[in-house]
C-alpha cells in the first residue's frame, strides 16, 4: 500500500515547533549544574520526537542534526554529563537552528547549511569532550536503514529446533503465528516434541511446555528465518541449521539462547535493527518531480490560515446548534396553524431564537480566540538574549497569559509588542551598576500583563527602570522642530511626542532600538487594529506602556445614530457620553469653528451632516444631540439628529468592497437589510480638523488644553 507521507508533514512541523518552544522555555529555566529531572526529560522528549519524526517523514537533515542534541541530552538525563552554560547556550542555538530547518522544510527552501554545519561541529566537539561514552556510533537511524546487510547465500533447506521457555506466551507471542510466517518462506513441516509436558495436575495453564523440530524447504536466508524469531530469541531455545547449501560457501549456522547452553554462534550478536527494518524506507525528499513542491506550497498556504481549537469550544458550538434546531422547529410549528392566542408563545420563541443566535455568535467568535501566551512566549528567550547583549540583569514577569484574543489581532500585535519590550530593555532598565548606584535592586523587572476590560484586551508592559525624562523629550522635540520654542505642554502631551515620526531620545544608537523608527510605527500598527497605546512614567521609578485592543476585528459594539435619513454607527468604545446641546455652552471661534464647553473642557463640535455633506432634520444645534467621542486621545462632539439602538454589528470591509474612505472604518448590514457606515472616530476628527486648520492653525492646542 502506497501511503503519501506528505499529508503528515504539516502535523509534524507544527508539533515540532511546539516542541521547540517547550524546549526553549525549559532551557531558559535551567541553571548550569541543575538536576531538574522534569525539565531535562521534557527537553529530551522534545528532541527525541523531533528526531524520530524527522526520520519517519523524510527530513533526514533535521533528524541527523537532532540526533547529536538528543545524544547529549540523553547523557545529561542519565547523569553522565553535567549541564554547563555552554551546553545550554548550544542547545538554545540548536532550537533556533531547528526552527530555521523546519521553516525551510515547510517552504521547501534551503536552510543555512553553513550555520547548521558550524553548530553541529560545536555540538560534536562537546560530545567528544569530557569522556562521556559516545553512543554516536549507534548512528542515526536513517542511515542505518540505508545500509542493508550483505545478501547472504540462499539455502534451500533448513532444520529448526525451537523450544519456547514456559513463560514465552506471556508476552503475547504466539507459536502459530511464527509457523505461519515460516510457511510463507517455503515448505514447512514441524514435529511436536511433548517430552516436557508435565502431568495434568502440575500444568500451568498459561505456560508453554512444547518444543518443535521442524524442516523448511525453500530459498531463504538465515536472516529471514531469524527475523521471525527476533522478538523471542531470549525466551526460547532456537537452533537453525542449514542442511544443504546452494551458495558458494558451506555454512552451518545455529542460533540459540546463551542460557540454554547449546551450541551458539556469533550470529546471535548481529544487530537486529538491520533485519527488522530491512525494507527500504520511502524517502519522498529525493523524488525529483515537481509534485512534491506543489503540494508543499499548497500545504504551507493552508497552514497559516489554520487554527487549533479546544475540543470544548467545538462541543459548546454543537450544543448551541442543537438548541437552535429545537427553537427553529418550535417556531415552524407555530407557523403551520397560527392562532392569535399563540402570539405570546411566538414572541417567546422569537426571543429564544435571538438568545440562541447571540450565543451561537459568541461561541463562533470564541473559536477564533487564542490565549495571549502565544504572543508572550517569545519574550523569555528575547530577554535572555538581550540581557547578554546589554550586560543587563532583567527578570521577566508574565501575568494574564491565558487572556484570550482574536487570532488576527494576535498575529498583528506581535511586532509592536516586541518593539515595546526591546525599547524597555534598551532605554528603560539600567545596567546593574547604575541600578545599584540609584539604590535599586541589581536585577531589573520587566512585567508583561494582560487582562480584559470591557470589550478590550489591555496589555501592559512595565519596567522598573529609569523612567522617561520629560524635559529631555521636550528639549529634543524643540530641537527637531516638533514643538515651538518655549511651549508649555502637559506631561501626557510630552510623552505623546515619543510616538511622533522621526523621534528618538537614545543617546547612542544601538541596533536594538533608537534608530528613530519604531514608536511611531508601533502606534500606527496598534491604531490600525482599532487600538490605542499610551504611556505613564515616573522618573527614576520606571514606565508603563499600555496597549488597548479590541478583542476581535470582526464584530463591533455599535451605537446607531441618525443624521437626516442616513444611519451611521459609532463604535461604542469611543463614545464618552451623549448630551443635549445648551446654547450657552457653545462658543464660536472666528465665526467658523465651534467649541462646546463641557464641564472644564472645550470640545470641537463636528456637524456630521457637514462632514458627509447630507441634509439633516435641522441645522440648529439645539435640535440635535451631541455625542462626545474620543479617538487617538482627542475628544470631539459629533452632532447627530437622533440616537437609535445599540447593537453588535458585523464589520464588512469598505476597502475590499469599495475603497478606503477617510473617516469611515467599514460598513455593516442592518437587520432591515440596509447598509450603514461605521465611523472611524479618529478619522472623522482628523478630517474635520483639516478643515478647521485651514482657518485656524491653533485649534488643536486650543481645543484640548483647557
Amino acid at each position, binding site marked *: 500500500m502506497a501511503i503519501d507521507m506528505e499529508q503528515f508533514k504539516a502535523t509534524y512541523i*507544527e508539533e515540532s515547533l511546539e516542541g521547540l518552544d517547550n524546549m526553549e522555555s525549559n532551557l531558559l529555566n535551567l541553571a548550569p549544574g541543575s538536576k531538574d529531572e522534569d525539565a531535562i526529560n521534557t527537553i529530551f522528549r522534545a528532541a527525541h520526537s523531533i528526531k*524520530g519524526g524527522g526520520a*519517519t*517523514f523524510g527530513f533526514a537533515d533535521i533528524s541527523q542534526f537532532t540526533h547529536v542534541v538528543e545524544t547529549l541530552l540523553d547523557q545529561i538525563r542519565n547523569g553522565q554529563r553535567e549541564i554547563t552554560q555552554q551546553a545550554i547556550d548550544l542547545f538554545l542555538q540548536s532550537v533556533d537552528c531547528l526552527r530555521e530547518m523546519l521553516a525551510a522544510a515547510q517552504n521547501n527552501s534551503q536552510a543555512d547549511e553553513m550555520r547548521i554545519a558550524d553548530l553541529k561541529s560545536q555540538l560534536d566537539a562537546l560530545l567528544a569532550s569530557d569522556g562521556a561514552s559516545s553512543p554516536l556510533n549507534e548512528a542515526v537511524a536513517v542511515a542505518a536503514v540505508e545500509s542493508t546487510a550483505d545478501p547472504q547465500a540462499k539455502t534451500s533447506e533448513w532444520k529448526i529446533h525451537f523450544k519456547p521457555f514456559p513463560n514465552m506466551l506471556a*508476552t503475547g507471542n504466539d507459536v502459530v*503465528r511464527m509457523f505461519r510466517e515460516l510457511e510463507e518462506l517455503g515448505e514447512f513441516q514441524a514435529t511436536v516434541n511433548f517430552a516436557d509436558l508435565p502431568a495434568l495436575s502440575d500444568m500451568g495453564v498459561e505456560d508453554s511446555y512444547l518444543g518443535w523440530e521442524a524442516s523448511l524447504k525453500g530459498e531463504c536466508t538465515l536472516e529471514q528465518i531469524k527475523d521471525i524469531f527476533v522478538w523471542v530469541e*531470549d525466551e526460547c531455545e532456537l537452533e537453525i541449521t542449514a542442511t544443504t547449501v546452494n551458495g558458494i560457501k558451506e555454512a552451518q549456522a545455529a542460533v540459540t539462547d546463551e542460557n540454554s547452553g547449546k551450541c551458539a554462534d556469533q550470529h546471535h550478536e548481529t544487530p537486529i535493527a538491520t533485519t527488522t527494518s530491512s525494507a527500504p*524506507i520511502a524517502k519522498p525528499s529525493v523524488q525529483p518531480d515537481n509534485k512534491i513542491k506543489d503540494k508543499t506550497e499548497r500545504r504551507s498556504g493552508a497552514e497559516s490560515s489554520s487554527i487549533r481549537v479546544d475540543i470544548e469550544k467545538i462541543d459548546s458550538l454543537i450544543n448551541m446548534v442543537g438548541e437552535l434546531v429545537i427553537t427553529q422547529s418550535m417556531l415552524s410549528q407555530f407557523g403551520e396553524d397560527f392562532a392569535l392566542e399563540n402570539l405570546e408563545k411566538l414572541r417567546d420563541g422569537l426571543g429564544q431564537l435571538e438568545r440562541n443566535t447571540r450565543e451561537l455568535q459568541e461561541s463562533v467568535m470564541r473559536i477564533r480566540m487564542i490565549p495571549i501566551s502565544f504572543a508572550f512566549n517569545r519574550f523569555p528567550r528575547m530577554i535572555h538574549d538581550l540581557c547578554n547583549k546589554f550586560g543587563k540583569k532583567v527578570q521577566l514577569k508574565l501575568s494574564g497569559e491565558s487572556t484570550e484574543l482574536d487570532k488576527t489581532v494576535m498575529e498583528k500585535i506581535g511586532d509592536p509588542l516586541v518593539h515595546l519590550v526591546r525599547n524597555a530593555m534598551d532605554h528603560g532598565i539600567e545596567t546593574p551598576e547604575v541600578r545599584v548606584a540609584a539604590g535599586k535592586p541589581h536585577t531589573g523587572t520587566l512585567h508583561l500583563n494582560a487582562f480584559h476590560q470591557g470589550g478590550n484586551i489591555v496589555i501592559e508592559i512595565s519596567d522598573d527602570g529609569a523612567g522617561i525624562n520629560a524635559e529631555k523629550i521636550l528639549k529634543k522635540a524643540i530641537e527637531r522642530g516638533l514643538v515651538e520654542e518655549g511651549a508649555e505642554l502637559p506631561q501626557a502631551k510630552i510623552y505623546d511626542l515619543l510616538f511622533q515620526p522621526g523621534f528618538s531620545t537614545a543617546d547612542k544608537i544601538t541596533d536594538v532600538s533608537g534608530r528613530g523608527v519604531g514608536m511611531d510605527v508601533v502606534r500606527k500598527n496598534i491604531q490600525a487594529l482599532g487600538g490605542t497605546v499610551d504611556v505613564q512614567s515616573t522618573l527614576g521609578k520606571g514606565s508603563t506602556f499600555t496597549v488597548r485592543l479590541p478583542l476581535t476585528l470582526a464584530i463591533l459594539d455599535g451605537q446607531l445614530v441618525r443624521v437626516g435619513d442616513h444611519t451611521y454607527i459609532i463604535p461604542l468604545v469611543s463614545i464618552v457620553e451623549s448630551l443635549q446641546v445648551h446654547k450657552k455652552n457653545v462658543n464660536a471661534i472666528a465665526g467658523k469653528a465651534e467649541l462646546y464647553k463641557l464641564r472644564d473642557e472645550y470640545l470641537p463640535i463636528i456637524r456630521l451632516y457637514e462632514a458627509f455633506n447630507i441634509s439633516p432634520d435641522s441645522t440648529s444645534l439645539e435640535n440635535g444631540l451631541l455625542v462626545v467621542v474620543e479617538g487617538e486621545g482627542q475628544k470631539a462632539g459629533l452632532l447627530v439628529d437622533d440616537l437609535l439602538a445599540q447593537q453588535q454589528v458585523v464589520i464588512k470591509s469598505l476597502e475590499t468592497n469599495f475603497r478606503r474612505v477617510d473617516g469611515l472604518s467599514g460598513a455593516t448590514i442592518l437587520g432591515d437589510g440596509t447598509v450603514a457606515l461605521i465611523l472611524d472616530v479618529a478619522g472623522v476628527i482628523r478630517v474635520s480638523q483639516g478643515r478647521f486648520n485651514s482657518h485656524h492653525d491653533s485649534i488643536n492646542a486650543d481645543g484640548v488644553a483647557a
Partner: protein
Amino acid sequence: MAQILAVDDSASMRQMVAFTLKGAGHDVTEASDGKQALDLAKSKKFDLVLSDVNMPNMDGIALTKELRSLPDFKFTPILILTTESGADKKQDGKSAGATGWIVKPFNPDQLLATVKKVLG
C-alpha cells in the same frame, strides 16, 4: 479487522500510524500518553497495542507492565515503537512483557507488515 490502540505523544506519528492501519481496515483508537492509554484499556478490549516508549505521564515500558496486569491484556500483543536501536530499550520492553518492537523510523509498509505478523 482488529481493534488497535495506538499510543504516542507525537501527533504526527499517531496520525501516520492511525491512517495506515485504518487504511488496512483496522479500527484504531489513539492515546497521547501511557495514562490515557491505560484508562482506555480499562474500558475496552484491544487486539493489539502499539506504544511509543518516551512519553510524558507514563512511558511505554510502564504502560506495558500495567497492561499485562489487566486480565484482558494478559496475552494481547503489545508492540513497542522505539527509536532506540540500542538493545536496552528493547530489553526493558521485553521484560515488561512486550511482545516485540518496531524500530523507528518505519514506513507504512513496514508497519503493516509487522502488524500482520502479530495479528496473523
